[in-house]
């Protein structure tokens, strides 16, 4: 899948990096689904970044009567402690984005390193790493995350670490494939002949050429990480009370589902929209970045 794209790398590498950002922006703007995705992601990112400015109330304060239905004073109602649900959802975006970014970064760092070394060295190293990855793939993702988070103790930090660890094999796979292809390219041969060390080859020649696949995977993992955090928090292994996270809000609101449906409806909606947004953006990125798809679309 990556052969064609990488074949252009030898001459196009530097140029694409400079014009990439702007070109990508334009391409996304032409992509209708991409606009929706990017819009949603931007919206939640804004909520997360500017939460203290936007949120109408302190998300931890309990001044209002409990279980108030949505009203002008509390647009999404209040929860079982009398806290404003809207404010908690806004602050919850912080948790979700923090988890998404940090855990994907961990997964990328761990998995990417493994995949890169695996694809570079091949042989025994490759076999060992890939079997390890196979083993991790064999476990159901959620169970593995719960096991790790359970052992490390419940907190948002361990939740991010657990999600990062469990998501790393997919990055190892995604990185290894293109690495194999790039390693066979003449410019790599050339670099080696010119005396470039292995680190230089990996970082300067291989990495930039596999970035596209990694970016797309990172976006997709970002959305599942948000979902995993919600799952962990739902089970009491993620964000700890009283701090707001969409998952803990769902979990706490569950028993009030019949009496106060807004306690589960809106956090659920937030999760759904955020995940949808990131997924749409990921799809669009793939369409825009994959030359094969772009050509067939044109």
């Amino acid at each position: 899948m990556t052969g064609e794209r990488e074949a252009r790398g030898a001459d196009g590498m530097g140029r694409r990096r400079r014009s990439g950002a702007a070109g990508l922006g334009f391409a996304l703007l032409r992509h209708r689904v991409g606009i929706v995705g990017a819009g949603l992601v931007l919206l939640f990112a804004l909520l997360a970044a500017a939460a203290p400015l936007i949120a109408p109330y302190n998300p931890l304060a309990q001044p209002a009567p409990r279980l108030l239905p949505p009203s002008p004073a509390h647009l999404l109602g209040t929860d079982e402690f009398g806290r404003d649900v809207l404010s908690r959802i806004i602050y919850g975006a912080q948790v979700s984005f923090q988890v998404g970014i940090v855990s994907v970064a961990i997964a990328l760092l761990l998995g990417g390193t493994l995949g890169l070394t695996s694809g570079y060295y091949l042989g025994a190293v490759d076999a060992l790493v890939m079997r390890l990855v196979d083993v991790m793939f064999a476990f159901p993702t959620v169970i593995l995350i719960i096991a790790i988070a359970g052992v490390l103790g419940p907190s948002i930090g361990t939740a991010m670490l657990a999600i990062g660890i469990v998501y790393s094999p997919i990055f190892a796979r995604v990185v290894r494939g293109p690495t194999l292809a790039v390693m066979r390219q003449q410019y790599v041969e050339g670099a080696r002949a010119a005396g470039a060390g292995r680190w230089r080859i990996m970082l300067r020649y291989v990495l930039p050429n596999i970035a596209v696949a990694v970016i797309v995977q990172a976006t997709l993992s970002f959305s599942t990480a948000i979902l995993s955090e919600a799952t962990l928090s739902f089970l009491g292994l993620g964000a700890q009370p009283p701090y707001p996270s969409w998952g803990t809000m769902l979990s706490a609101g569950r028993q009030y589902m019949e009496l106060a449906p807004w306690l589960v409806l809106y956090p659920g909606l937030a999760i759904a929209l955020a995940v949808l947004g990131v997924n749409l953006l990921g799809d669009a990125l793939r369409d825009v970045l994959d030359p094969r798809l772009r050509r067939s679309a044109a």
Partner: protein
Amino acid sequence: MESTSGPADSARGGRFPRRELLGRAAALGVGLGTSGALLALGDAPAVAVPAATPRPGGRSIWAAESDPVSLNPITNSLFASVQGFEHCYESLTAYDAKMNIVPALAQSWETPNETTYIFHLRRGVRWHDGTEFTADDVAYTFGIVLDPKGPAVYRSNFDQVDKVQVVDKHTVKLLTKAPFPPLLGAFAILRSSAIVQKGALDKYNMETQIVGTGPYRLAEYVPKSYLRLVRNRDYWGKPLPYLDEVLFKIMTEEDARVAGLRARSIDYAFLTPLGEQRLRSERGLTILKGPRIFLYVFQINMLRKPWSDVRVRRALNLAVDRREMIAKALNGAGTVSGPIATGFGHWFVPPAELERKWYVHDPEEAKRLLKGAGVPEGQPLDLLVTPFGGSGFYTAAAVVFKEQMQKVGIDVKIRQVEPGVFDKEISPPTFNYDIQINAFTPRHDPDGFLWNRFYSKNAYADGYSNPKVDDLLLRARTTVNPAQRKALYDEVQRLLLADVPMLWIAVDQVIEGLQDYVQGYQQSPFTRRDWGLKHAWLQK
């Protein structure tokens, strides 16, 4: 659905002949004042409003909110286990629905002196396998329970029992080392006190089978699924029980229980306050509510600074708003309580006094006290809590507490751990917490709420020591005269309330939902169901 429980059922309930009614009522010594009124409902046939005379027979499906796990009455500390075997095993005494101690396998008893109890056993009682119940069975049971190397988990309930002697086939004598007022309750609570058949340990698998003397025989136990009980036709308490068969379906999720009550597929379920709110407008259901002996507390670690300072603990007590905590963490279904759980016999400090004198909410005074004790603004507090059990109280209470303490400058850090870790952290010698949220489950004696935690020489008294309290507790547990004993507990509780070794919050409620056609059931503040089920009957 709802309409079927109306006239049609009542008509069936009223169908049996009047003579039979009279006969039954007479047998029970019940007056007939309320029976047989006739009503005409529009075009519907005239319907007899049934008499409050129990009608035997019928099959009923009840929800059990947890799996008993084991049915062994001697080795088990799980309350769910008691709820599993309580209909089949009995002890010498029992609790009625109002927590009075009443005769069970012992028909009567006498105390010739303060350290001797003579129990006269009921005659003609048969085990579920048909053999006769005798004093040998009692001796066998206590042989196991009192054996220091034996498996009984609640041996400490009988730690003052010195000897058990068989006088004759129907008489047993118990000698105690010291005057031991908790003895009769220790039988009734059914904690390592159910009488088992002689040789039971070798005869059958006590984990999953029961040979008892109780009103119901265990026909079948399928773990995590159901217990099937059938009426013991030879029960000494005839005409009890009324129901022929009771299926306890294990339904751990409240959603399932609520749905079951709505769909009339179960006749009984234990409910949380939320479940009750959901069913409030449902027709054809009766909701019973009463105080439950389940005392929620914030246990303070007095081995640590600054909590060892009584001024600081008093400040915490002033800063806690119990009313808000009951509203938010117990969904309003609770009553404030002192050291002995509100509702526990006549032993507790009246809630009115607690609210007026001991539980005044005054954050300003709290701040002043904290300042006087040199506690800095932003003082951290490690609050240990487990999210499991306690009907969701623990985590919710932690959140409310954090908010309340923030107002007096204490920074509560909630540490949520699983039950295994929790137990380790709160046990001696670890005591790794500033405050931990916990609960006292039902005890058989007022001593049970106080002795372990506040008698300074006990392993669980995490740093608390007051010689006056020690002295009173020692005297109270050996004083037999009820009035004197009450005076001692009154005094010691007020000393404790002034010392604040823990923040007693509240007791919650027993809430149970029954179909209207289930009659005769009575709640127990212990969440026991044996008395209620034995008296329950179906009006349909």
